[in-house]
């Protein structure tokens, strides 16, 4: 246990005072923040075993430079705490460097040390101050544009919108300094900047609200941005010389930290590394966002306050450079006791480790009734038949769940169901690939899943497909992704999990992807050509030997570019797609395997480890990075075998947890401590209704007995499916399949013709049973098993049979029971 020897209360200490002041400064600009963190709690320093101070050495090379100093305490029980607020900073030579609100400020050239004292420890940081007698010219890019970004002036809702605001337009988040130079420097004749009387510049007066500003008050004179803008104007609105140092990277400290109550705050330190070797503190110039504001908030100065248990990635942006700090906040939960649930594999190990840390208790194992229904729906998209459910329920074998999983993965419906899923993503539709193309491509997909084509081969085959779209249906990939930009976006979303669309027109506003990146990926695909085939609906895909992509903004010709790797080395006139596919499916590719396993996980668990499943980005971190890594590694080691990974997940205790929650996981929506209930998909639901009533649905132009999950495309115009969210297959985004419920759906179920006709059908299940001489109780029991994969409770059976008796007409009474089952949430939902 930690010994609490000293408690420092807020304003008594200078460091703490600084933090309080910072907090009061509030978020970006002058807008008060609704849901702002409560008043800062005092810090409990205790007795750290050691302390760490960042940065280890300080160089202040111009009068404007500053440096935040961050102190961390490491305790005997393994915990860590940010002690910045409580640390005493003393300069050994205030004539060289002084301390202002916990920040080192240069005074005159020379050397000194800053003594950092906290928790009985002292660390000395050497300081070298130089250049204090030279003028410190504000850089346009790293001063002015940084300041405007910091205050949010060039955000998408304000002057960064495509049409600007109030006749003043800047590039979104300063992605296009050339345009901003034009606007701010070349157009300087207007009143925006006044070199002779900087304070009269509209660039200052507007955000200060000294004159009316549609965007309200966005800046105070105390903000660092004010000084930068003011001085830049006073210095004559200069453009940066061509050889000015460039920012090459930013570092954030700490990159990762686990804070356990009472520790719950963290001051971040953000350092920008420049090409001249200088390291500059940009802590109060960077822009911060928290990935989960329910867990932690971050203020304009990089001070993070944890609000609740959980994890938050703090995204730090400095112009186009981005980094994240991953913070985990823990808190003891009263009455919580870990119950050591058995672990079936690394999956459970990773999930349970995180749950234990966060003090969330997993639900119990689901019942056999729940499991059989869940496994059938997830693996083959269909409800178990009455006989199948019964057989499973009476089976006494201890490994019956594993056996069922194996059996389901080998069912032909498995291939149909997953072909449907990929048919959505690959936008299989008559208007894109012609009706004949739909059937051929669908057949190819079904076959790929039936033969369990490894995912790497699957991707490579699609991405490098050539030839006739009929003879080689995979070539339809380039028919639906009809141009270079579409290829870029589709490939990124499907196989990299990156939604790169934004970067088509401007640098991605909240991600690292730039416009150059977008067109750099395009350079792999722009040589793909199509020509008519020998039959009318056929196209032939081929690759020309020349052709380059031009970035529309800069006019530069783009080299093929690989994410996180850089420009690709290409050999001569080879098909560039091969290079891309080889990189993509290499065992160490940082995207592909993760996206694939995440899709499978999301499908089975109802929520991705990264969620949405195709939206990987720094500001949307995985709920368990370890789990994602391990699943991906295992997937690669098993040759990208989809069934292997599905089997691993399906056999985990995590997958088999009940959806019924306990007091310690009631609010968890992220860490898989219980099963996630969700509406059946349109096709699952329609098939389930058919299955329960034993009345098939007829689809025009397809053989009778075709199930909805077997439909090659949504071209079969089925109103019921559309109402329940069958996607029109217009985008490669998983999000196109709507999981929303709506009024039309409810009306369809309650009073719609499809349900009504099946419930009343002359040859439906209940009539067949009645004709076969079954009793009311038998019929009711079978309907329950068919719809819910469980027998009715005694009370349910009793009420249902009494209803049948009371209704006077047996058929009508049983129809009512059937109707009620089809409208029950337990039927409509996967749980």
């Amino acid at each position: 246990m930690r010994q609490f020897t000293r408690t420092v209360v807020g304003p008594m200490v200078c460091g703490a005072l600084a933090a309080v002041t910072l907090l009061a400064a509030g978020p970006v600009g002058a807008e008060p923040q609704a849901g702002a963190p409560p008043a800062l709690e005092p810090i409990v320093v205790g007795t750290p075993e050691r302390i760490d101070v960042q940065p280890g050495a300080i160089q202040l090379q111009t009068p404007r430079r500053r440096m935040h100093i961050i102190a961390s305490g490491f305790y005997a029980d393994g915990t860590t705490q940010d002690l910045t607020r409580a640390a005493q900073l003393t300069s050994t030579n205030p004539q060289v460097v002084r301390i202002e609100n916990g920040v080192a400020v240069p005074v005159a050239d020379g050397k000194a040390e800053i003594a950092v004292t906290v928790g009985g420890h002292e660390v000395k940081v050497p300081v070298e101050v130089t250049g204090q007698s030279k003028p410190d010219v504000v850089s346009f890019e790293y001063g002015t544009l940084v300041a405007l970004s910091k205050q949010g002036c060039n955000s998408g809702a304000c002057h960064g919108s495509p049409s600007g605001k109030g006749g003043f337009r800047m590039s979104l988040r300063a992605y296009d300094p050339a345009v901003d130079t034009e606007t701010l420097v070349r157009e300087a004749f207007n009143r925006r900047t006044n070199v002779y009387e900087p304070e009269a510049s509209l660039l200052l007066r507007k955000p200060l609200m000294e004159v009316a500003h549609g965007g309200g008050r966005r800046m105070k004179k105390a903000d660092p941005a004010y000084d930068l803008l003011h001085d830049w104007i006073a210095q004559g609105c200069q453009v940066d010389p061509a050889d000015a140092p460039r920012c090459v990277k930013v570092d954030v400290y700490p990159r990762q930290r686990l804070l356990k109550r009472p520790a719950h705050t963290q001051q971040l330190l953000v350092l920008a590394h420049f090409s001249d070797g200088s390291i500059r503190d940009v802590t109060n110039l960077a822009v911060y966002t928290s990935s989960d504001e329910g867990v932690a908030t971050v203020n304009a100065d990089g001070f993070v306050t944890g609000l609740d248990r959980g994890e938050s990635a703090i995204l730090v942006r400095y112009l186009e450079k981005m980094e994240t700090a991953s913070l985990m906040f823990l808190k003891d939960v009263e009455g919580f006791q870990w119950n050591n649930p058995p672990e079936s594999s690394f999956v459970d190990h990773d999930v349970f480790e995180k749950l234990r840390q966060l003090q969330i208790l997993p639900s119990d194992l689901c019942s056999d009734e729940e499991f059989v229904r869940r496994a059938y729906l997830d693996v083959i998209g269909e409800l178990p038949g009455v006989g199948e459910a019964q057989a499973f329920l009476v089976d006494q074998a201890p490994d019956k769940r594993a056996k069922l999983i194996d059996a389901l993965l080998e069912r032909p419906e498995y291939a149909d169901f997953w072909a449907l899923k990929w048919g959505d993503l690959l936008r299989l539709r008559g208007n894109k690939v012609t009706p004949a193309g739909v059937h051929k491509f669908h057949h190819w997909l079904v076959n790929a899943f039936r033969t369990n084509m490894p995912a790497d081969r699957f991707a490579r085959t699609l991405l490098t497909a050539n030839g006739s779209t009929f003879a080689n249906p995979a070539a339809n990939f380039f028919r639906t992704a009809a141009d270079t930009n579409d290829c870029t976006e589709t490939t990124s979303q499907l196989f990299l999990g990156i939604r790169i669309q934004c970067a088509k027109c401007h640098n991605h506003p909240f991600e690292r992807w730039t416009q150059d990146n977008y067109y750099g990926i395009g350079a792999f695909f722009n040589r793909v050509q199509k020509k008519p085939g020998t039959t009318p609906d056929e196209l032939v895909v081929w690759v020309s030997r020349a052709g380059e992509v031009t970035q529309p903004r800069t006019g530069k010709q783009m080299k093929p570019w690989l994410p996180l790797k850089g420009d690709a080395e290409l050999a001569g006139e080879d098909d560039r797609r091969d290079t891309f596919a080889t990189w993509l499916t290499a065992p160490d590719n940082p995207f592909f395997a993760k996206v694939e396993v995440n899709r499978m996980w999301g499908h089975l668990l109802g929520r991705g480890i990264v969620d949405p499943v195709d939206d990987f980005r720094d500001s949307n971190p995985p709920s368990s990075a370890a789990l994602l890594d391990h699943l991906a590694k295992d997937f690669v080691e098993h040759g990208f075998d989809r069934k292997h990974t599905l089997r691993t997940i399906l056999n985990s205790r995590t997958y088999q947890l009940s959806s019924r929650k306990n007091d310690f996981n009631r609010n968890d929506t992220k860490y898989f401590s219980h099963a996630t209930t969700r509406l059946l998909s349109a096709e699952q639901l329609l098939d389930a209704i058919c299955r329960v009533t034993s009345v098939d649905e007829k689809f025009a132009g397809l053989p009778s007995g075709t199930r909805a999950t077997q439909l090659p495309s949504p071209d079969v115009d089925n109103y019921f499916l559309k109402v329940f969210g069958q996607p029109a297959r217009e985008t490669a985004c998983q999000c196109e399949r709507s999981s929303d419920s709506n009024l039309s759906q409810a009306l369809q179920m309650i009073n719609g013709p499809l349900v009504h006709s099946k419930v009343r059908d002359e040859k439906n299940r209940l009539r067949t049973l009645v004709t076969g001489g079954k009793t009311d109780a038998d019929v009711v029991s079978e309907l329950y098993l068919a719809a819910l994969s469980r027998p009715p409770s005694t009370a349910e059976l009793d009420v249902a049979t009494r209803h049948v008796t009371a209704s006077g007409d047996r058929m009508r009474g049983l129809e009512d029971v059937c109707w009620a089952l089809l409208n029950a949430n337990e039927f409509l939902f996967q749980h």
Partner: protein
Amino acid sequence: MAPSGSPHDPLRPQAGGCAEFRSLRRMSRRRILEAGSLGLLGLGLDALCGARAAATPGGAGAPTGFGRAKACIFLFMWGGPSQLDTFDPKPDAPREIRGEFRSISTAVPALSICEHFEQVAKVADRLAVVRSLTHSDPAHLSSGHATLTGHRAPVLNSDVDGPSDRDTPHLGSVVARLQQAARAVPPFVTLPWVAAHPAAPGGRAPGQNGGWLGSRYDPMLLSGDPNARDWSVPELALADDVTLGRLEGRQHLLRLVDEQRRALDNSAGAEAFKQQALGLVGSTAARQAFDLSAEPEKVRERYGRNIHGQCVLLARRLIEHGVSLVSVNWHNDGGNFWDTHGNNFRRLKKDLIPPADRALAALLIDLEERGLLDETIVAWVGEFGRKPQITRAGVGRDHWPHCYSGLLAGGGIGRGAVYGASDAHGAYPASAPVSPQDYAATIYHALGIDPELMLVDRMGRPLRVCEGRAMRALFA
């Protein structure tokens, strides 16, 4: 743990939205509070991301007319009515431009309109005419999108591109998205059909449903002819052998099954719709809203015993029962609606203007008598106007988006106002040009929704719901 809305919470931005958007949303709360009156919506503040109603610092309160309307009846004159032959006559223009009709004076001294709008002329002091609507898109479908959503269509100048989920949501879908408390009736109803054009390869016009907000915000469609004796709403009409009593029995059984898994996660949204649907189907009270037979014959006559008249009457009835926005699309009259290329004058005089005239006048008076006019904004507009130069055959007018007229009334709109003016031939605006986006923005403004509102689409991107700026001068 972080509190987090259920995935079915309508106000939960899907996929989170980008950080910039989240901070915008946070920032907007105070502004919303300052905005005060929010008319119909009882808005979830969370939902009003970026709505800068009272962006004027110092919080001087809401701008004029903001939030005065609690509901909207949008009379969509599909096909594109001729401005010269409706509300912007040019009696001094040459005959091949002014056409066959004369103009008449109205209850507003300075305002003359086409002679065939006799009834509307008498109530012109309850409405405002906008005579300077203009855009450059001559295609029905894409212009329809701009008119109904206040945002350009995903594909401009197109009669080929039908509805898609790239469409901007209809005004009514945005209203539905922002409406927090579930009501017994749906928030957005379209009747009597989804506007479609036989001459347009794309078929149905885009912009008539939830678009990028998702199908959840599609309108409830009431199709058919409410003037027909056997008209009913099929979704609400119980199947022959299901009586209200039997439905009650079924509900009883259903409740029992649902009790077994009452705490089923994420089912709250579906459950709410289920209850709403059961209410609509099973409760006499909710069905009342859709029951035109409850209207006195005199009232039904007043609106005109024809499909359009009865649709407009039904719209009023729905608004009265709590529906927030009703879009009455000019019905499928088998004659290409207001798209009078070939027979402009005969069609207008015989088929189009009389029912439109009667229904609109009846609606304004009826709303006024019921004290609803001040809180209901009524729009009457097509997707464009018609070419001043009559076709060579001398009988028709072709498409003309460069200048046309629309009406607005109620919900704080100034009575008897004329906004903008066209040139001598009604060919281009002579003053105060406004776009269909501005027209839609004006409706948003009246409904207490800032036209600059941004909502997240299903990919989490914050998007503007409307590109226009409200014609604030129209508000009294």
